[in-house]
């Protein structure tokens, strides 16, 4: 696919995929547990910067890929903003109540969500799934049975997608019409799930037997076609990210781009 070819492969592509995964995961954990508004904002900006610098994709493609996140940003924020709790009321209308607290908490929440999206995108764009599982098995001692199950499952996805199309065609030809409302949704799920699951389960079973017939044994030792290892790049990534996270935290403390703190009396109540 044209869309998923990078302009160039940056050094980030050659970081050990499993190590990359855990570094990104750790960074996102910090985002997840942070309640500080300015820190979250700085983190998000840094993540976007990393995506632009390290993904090796052109601006235009990145904007295209990020477009859905705007939607996610708005939808996540709006629920919290419109219905969240708060003391300092800005506007009410029926059950809608926008307060200062709900507004900023909404923004905080959606910044976190988009952070996950941006870093997830960075990982997916720069990592070959196969190598990720090879690295998990080699550097992180993931049991081979799980590694290869995932690899086999990824291989099956296009087939399932193809079958979904065939099923859609078949249902059109059979003249299936859906009822309106929830019943229609249930009908749709039933008409797609039964044949697709039946095929997939059968296929998975056959592949499993074929794998074992090729002497794939859970316990035995094995060699690896793709050797993954640690390199200096991993150290560079670790150090860079730690420095950037500290920078984000410190700058949020002293030179925040925008700061908001919950009103004091509420903070007291919370404690």
């Amino acid at each position, binding site marked *: 696919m044209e869309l998923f070819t990078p302009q160039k492969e940056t050094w980030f592509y050659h970081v050990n995929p499993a190590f990359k995964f855990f570094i990104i995961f750790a960074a996102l954990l910090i985002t997840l547990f942070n309640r500080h508004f300015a820190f979250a904002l700085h983190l998000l900006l840094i993540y976007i910067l990393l995506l632009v610098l390290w993904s090796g994709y052109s601006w235009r493609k990145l904007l295209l890929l990020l477009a859905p996140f705007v939607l996610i940003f708005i939808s996540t924020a709006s629920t919290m903003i419109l219905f969240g709790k708060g003391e300092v009321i800005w506007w009410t209308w029926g059950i809608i109540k926008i307060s200062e607290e709900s507004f900023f908490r909404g923004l905080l929440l959606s910044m976190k969500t988009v952070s996950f999206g941006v870093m997830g995108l960075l990982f997916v764009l720069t990592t070959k799934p196969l190598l990720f599982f090879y690295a998990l098995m080699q550097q992180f001692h993931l049991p081979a049975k799980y590694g290869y199950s995932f690899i086999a499952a990824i*291989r099956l996805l*296009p087939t399932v997608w193809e079958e979904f199309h065939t099923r859609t*065609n078949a249902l059109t030809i059979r003249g299936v019409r859906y009822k309106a409302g929830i019943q229609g949704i249930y009908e749709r799920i039933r008409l797609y799930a039964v044949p697709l699951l039946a095929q997939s389960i059968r296929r998975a079973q056959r*592949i499993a037997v074929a794998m*074992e017939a090729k002497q794939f044994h859970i316990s035995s030792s*094995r060699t690896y076609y793709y050797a993954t290892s640690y390199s200096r790049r991993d150290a560079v990534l670790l150090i860079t990210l730690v420095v950037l996270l500290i920078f984000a935290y410190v700058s949020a403390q002293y030179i925040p781009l925008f700061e908001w703190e919950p009103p004091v009396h509420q903070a007291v109540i919370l404690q």
Partner: protein
Amino acid sequence: MNVSQLSSDLSITNLRLKFAGESSFIFKDLSFVVPQGQKILLLGPSGCGKSTLLQVLSGIIPTSIEVPMKADSIQKPDSWGFVFQDPDTQFCMPMVDEELAFVLENLSVPREQMKARMTSVLEMVGLHLDLDELHVPIQSFSQGMKQRLALATVLLLNPEVLFLDEPSALLDPDGTMQIWEAIKYVASEKTVIIVEHKIEHIISYVDRVVLFNDKGEIIADDTPDFVFSNNKDELQQFGIWYPDVWQDYTQSNTYQTIMHEKHLYNQSPSIPAVSRKRPPLLWLHQFAGYREKQRKIYVREAAVHTGEWIAITGENGAGKSTFLLSLMQLLRTEGTYVIEGQPIVQAQSRRKKHTPPSQLAFVFQNPEMQFVTDSVYDEIAFALQLEKRPQVEIDRIVKGLLSSFHLHVSEDRHPYQLSMGQKRRLSVASAIVQNQPILLLDEPTFGLDAKSTFAMLERLEQLRVSGVSILMITHDPHIVEYFCDHVWEIREGELSSISKVKRPTAATTSLYDANKDVDMAESHIIHSEAATKRSK
């Protein structure tokens, strides 16, 4: 009887095996010996347990598939390879080199040695890939190449014994020939145990044929020559594609009657004369079908008349299925497309909902994909119920179709619980329930045994006689020769030639007036002016 001595690779004594939930044994006290180096073919009706026996002998049962079984003694081979039926469910990796590497990894082969071993086994099965060409998607291979790749992967195991479970069942004639050639080449020193219905390529290859009945008992165990001359009745009864099956079938009373009626039909003064002069039932002119923005099929000109049986042939990926989907308006199409004198309003984009022309019935290759209900009865009744026909009428039509399609099963049976042949017949019955004048089929006999194939073809011929035109994708030259009237060949996304089928069998023509046999004409090339005039 102690048979597991001597230099036998493989033996089993008094095997008893039963699947959970089944009341009867698959095997009861079966004993079986295979001497080293023997090439052996297991034959029997579907469901007699041939494949199960392969799995027991290899140890897949009970190691990988847990099935309760018991045997006095089993001697399994030290090393073995197993090639399965379905080319799409044998691989766990996306790329050719990765799949081969998977086996080498399992054997703990050092990385540096891997590539050399890969090219050598690929060479042996006739897949010539250079070192830098190894990293190609398996999906880009044809089904036949995939099966040869599967054979190559098991060769890496250095097997003493090869187990082959219908390796050519899902392949076209070319692929079938190539996989057997590869097997013959690589397995000269090995013990080979084969389960297969399509046996024309291996009959001279195997040393021994073992015939099972539907109770899993061995009823014949001898040389191929002996079995094929002495057990013909059983072979026919079990639907096995034995070498002379088409010859015997075309000489059978059933086929002779069909041809006699076909002959009368073509001769009868009223029907064909009128239908020849009448405008064609379906007419295409500069018709093109698109996937995304690419033109995938082009038909300069073609016509279908009432009661014609047209075979659509061509290589895998030539665009046969795309052609049928284009006719069904499930893809975007352009050009002139007329059915029964009415131009079809064509789907301009894939997004826009478009209803398939009501004159067409369509049968998918995999029947399960088109089942929409939970019982055999409802499956056929579905379209009628949508039309809100009276219950009495629905009941009459459904019962009629159930009997004419030989679906003698409980009406409440879930369609998934039918045999493959029954599923296929049910899918045809449910497709044509609205009496559409044109029936499109995507390889309706693919992977079926001989008996189910003939049953299917006879049903289709019945429909044709009743005035239905049939467009059918098929790879089987025999079906074309003995049943179809015209062949449309699709090559590289284009309908490249239209020809009439010559029906050469002495048996048929000798019975009737040979000179007047209508289908004896020479082939036409579609670009010729004659073809153009004829369809106008």
